[in-house]
């Protein structure tokens, strides 16, 4: 994760187990699975019994088997895309009782979408335990046409909808689960600095 002087830029303190929770939902991607394994190693067997893992990533069969082995005996649901994983999370949260603890480990877009979904079910963002692992890819909203641009690895980046070249700011909206992208050449059209691969 990149540090920033901008205070809206989220901080992810790392996963620690809440041993009192009656049930746990952990949303993770392949890189986050390592953080989940460390979390499980710090918890007891009851924690594992009460836990469901939503693993949202495109995985080869052997990766899938390796992760299942590493995180056993916890039940793992595999979902091929982040969107599918978040949809499943929302399904599980709907009708869930208090005493549930939510965790997210992996890329920033994954964490952001979990926190956003939690918020829709009145889960305070501070009660969601998060750890950033793996890619620095960002989810960016174009402030001009409001399109969300997924998996952004460069700054600046072209809006996939309106085509404006956007400066990616560290200013972050939890509600939108996105960083802000603002036209970079508004003053002198075409005066665009070289593209840097900042978020690999």
């Amino acid at each position, binding site marked *: 994760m990149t540090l920033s002087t901008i205070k809206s830029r989220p901080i992810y303190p790392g996963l620690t187990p*809440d041993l009192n929770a009656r049930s746990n939902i952990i949303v993770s991607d392949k890189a986050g699975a390592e953080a989940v394994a460390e979390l499980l190693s710090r918890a007891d067997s009851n924690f594992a019994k009460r836990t469901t893992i939503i693993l949202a990533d495109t995985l080869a069969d052997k990766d899938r088997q390796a992760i299942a082995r590493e995180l056993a005996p916890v039940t793992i649901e595999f979902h091929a895309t982040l969107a599918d994983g978040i949809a499943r999370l929302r399904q599980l949260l709907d009708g869930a009782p208090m*005493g*549930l603890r939510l965790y997210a480990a992996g890329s920033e877009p994954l964490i952001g979408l979990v926190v956003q979904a939690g918020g829709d079910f*009145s*889960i305070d963002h501070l*009660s969601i335990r998060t750890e950033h692992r793996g890619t620095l890819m960002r989810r960016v909203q174009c402030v001009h046409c409001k399109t969300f641009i997924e998996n952004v690895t460069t700054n600046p980046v072209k809006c996939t909808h309106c085509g404006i070249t956007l400066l990616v700011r560290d200013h972050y909206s939890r509600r939108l689960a996105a960083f802000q992208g603002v036209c970079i050449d508004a003053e002198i059209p075409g005066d665009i600095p070289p593209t840097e691969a900042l978020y690999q």
Partner: protein
Amino acid sequence: MSGNILRRVRVAEVEPVANRIKRFRFVDIDNAPLSEFSGGSHISVVMHSGDRLMRNPYSLMGSPTDTSSYQISVLNVDPSRGGSRFMHENVKVGSELEIGQPLNLFPPAKLAKKHVFVAGGIGITPFMAMMNELDGLHADFELHYGVRSLEDGAYCKYLQSRYGSRVNVYRQDLGQLIPLETVLSSQRLGTHMYVCGPKPMIDWALQAARLLGWPDENVHSEQFSAPPPGKPFVVKLARSGRDIVVSGHQSILEALEENGIDAPFLCRGGACGQCQTEVLACDGFIEHNDHYLTEPEKVSGKKIMICMSRIPTGSITLDL
């Protein structure tokens, strides 16, 4: 910016509502409308008892939209520092008092899907206004109210008739306890719990919630405690060079006010942070009785909330 706008009110009604509990209704001295308030707010009531000046915070318990009067309930605590006894013995219909503007340090969580209120004894009062407000908004809530007996518990009948099955009363004299574990185990996601009552009850409820896996963010408490008494000590004021004696039954803030020194304050319950004062020197250690300073701040000994905290003996030098 010290203190609070004061308004003169007249006591329009005094009603004993339970053992040692009286309800007071205040109207503006000129019958001008009072400000509306939000559920969970309190006011400070200024009392002049002989040459002593006391200001006690009390939760507003009436309807937040009623601008014709404010209502509070006062438990005559034993031993009283003087405030609640003064209210019980000296304040009658027609008495005039000064009150501050409503201040809310215990609001219902507006994002909650449901509210569970846990009250013990006089701790019922902030919830009366909150339930009134939430009922008007058609919000989902339930009350669990522990009383010693029906004679000791205020407003049991009123609450049950107004809110029906949403109100659950537990009588200690019948051996009934609030079944908190059961109550908290069956709540939907997004529920918030609020507890108000004696300190042991608050600690018990917070612990129960934690053990059932409730996040801290969903749990709220308010405890109105008077500043605990102690032995006399001396406050040295670095800026004016004055020495003020704080008697055993006074807070530092009260001693300053008695000596005509204007110090900042708002809630007088150690919650709002307004009276935070820098400590320049201190004999021994500070007895921190507030809910505002963080543990590291308390340990550092560099800050004190003068409305609640004191030292056992000796002197303390403040940046005032």
